[in-house]
């Protein structure tokens, strides 16, 4: 089954901690995806302020690689038969109703080490 990565974006200027209700929505959505068997892997990321980048010249800088108006909060990989199927699942992500959005990208290949 083809796989799609879904990246969750939120406005970069939003420093406020997510409301507990908003967090709950994400947990419920993740559980729903897990139970449907469509989710392959999912990762929530720490705040972009904690990111460190390594540039092409080897130098190390503080912050995300690209300064943009939106930041990546996390990503997950799902399985779908085609793009319409992937968009239908990704379109239900709560981040879309919380002022953010998602990007859906076909996965070319990959592997995940089972957790030990």
């Amino acid at each position, binding site marked *: 089954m083809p796989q799609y990565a879904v990246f969750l974006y939120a406005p970069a200027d939003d420093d406020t901690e997510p409301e507990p209700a908003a967090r709950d929505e994400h947990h419920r959505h993740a559980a729903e995806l897990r139970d449907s068997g469509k989710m392959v892997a999912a990762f929530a990321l720490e705040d972009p302020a904690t990111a460190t980048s390594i540039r092409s010249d080897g130098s190390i800088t503080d912050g995300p690689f690209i300064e943009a108006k939106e930041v990546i909060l996390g990503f997950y990989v799902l399985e779908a*038969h085609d*793009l*319409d199927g992937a968009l*239908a699942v990704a379109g239900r992500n709560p981040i879309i109703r919380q002022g953010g959005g998602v990007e859906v990208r076909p996965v070319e290949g990959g592997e995940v080490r089972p957790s030990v």
Partner: protein
Amino acid sequence: MSIDAAVEQAVAAAHRHEWATLLAATVRTTRNLDVAEECVQEAFAAALATWATTGIPEHPGAWLTTIARRRAIDAVRRDAALRPKLPLLVIAEEAGPDDAHDAGDGEGGDGVGDERLRLIFMSCHPALAPDARLALTLRLVCGVPTADVARALLVSETTMGARLTRAKRKIAIARIPVRAPSAAELPDRLSSVLGVLHLLFSLGYAAPSGDELHRVDLVDEAVRLARVLRELMPDEREVGGLLALLLAIDARRATRVGPDGTPLTLDRQDRTRWDQAMLREANELLEAGPRGAPPGRYVLQAAIASLHAAAPTFDETDWDQILRLYDAMVVVWPSPVVRLNRAVALSMTEGPAAALDEVDAVSSDGRLSSYHYLPAVRADLLRRLGRTAEADDADRLALSLASNEAERAFLSARLAGRPPA
């Protein structure tokens, strides 16, 4: 007619009517758009060469399908070793019952069973860039050669080739399915298709007449596709609305510019030269539309166009009714351009002062700051209020924003105090 001319004519007619069906059927075998296009092209070339000696077959479409399919099977065999350049296309199974498809799951067949529809919906998929949707629709659904698509959309052939290649690559790699949408997806997806057809029409309509060699007639292609869509989806009210709109506007084709090429506003067009058959058909479409759901933007726009057509003279236009239609349109399509057009109708019912307030409100929104039509409308309203100096300023602003030569000539004439030709 010579036999060669008859054959050429038959091949051209088959190209017009059968291209999309042939390509969609061939894609089923090749599951690759480029290979399918080649096979279909070869089938037409074979028809040109063969029909002159064998005679034109009774069912040209079936003949072409057989040849294209044979080529496709050969191509698949031949390419099997070289194949995995691009992933194979995802193609819907033969259509099942209407609701067999679980909306959103993306598996199985689709609700609507025509091959052409699948190709139209794939080409106009919202996951593709808008300019790519236009180009793909012309190339894949209308069968227009890439060079002509490039000319019609005013880019170089290299640029167009790259744009089409990029779009086809995305279709294959992201797995945009060759499938008509399920009932749940239909509203969004249909509005993208209608938007593409409307844009095709507008591009053709706005283009200068007396066209260059080989220019594709976008207006005719858009009307033809809208007809196909209407035939395939007779229950979708907006599809009938779009076709009615295109016909009602196209009916004025002969009168929209004066002898010197400047555009003529509605009040200056010779209404006796409007195409009555097209207007009648537009009216019938509007009346035949399924009732119940509130009308969408195309039905409303078509109703406005057809009210203009119904008035024997400009002065007899039913502006009250037109204003009511614009009121409804602002609700379903809250665009500043719609509000601006509504202001023009308002000026005919409430007078230029009320309309000017509305135009200034639209202007303060800022989204139309580079749209020449806004100051042009303001200039007209100011002139009707006797505020000539301000009107001239507005016309000068409009002139600085207008890029179309014919429109610039119209504005210059008005500024010079001459009635436009």
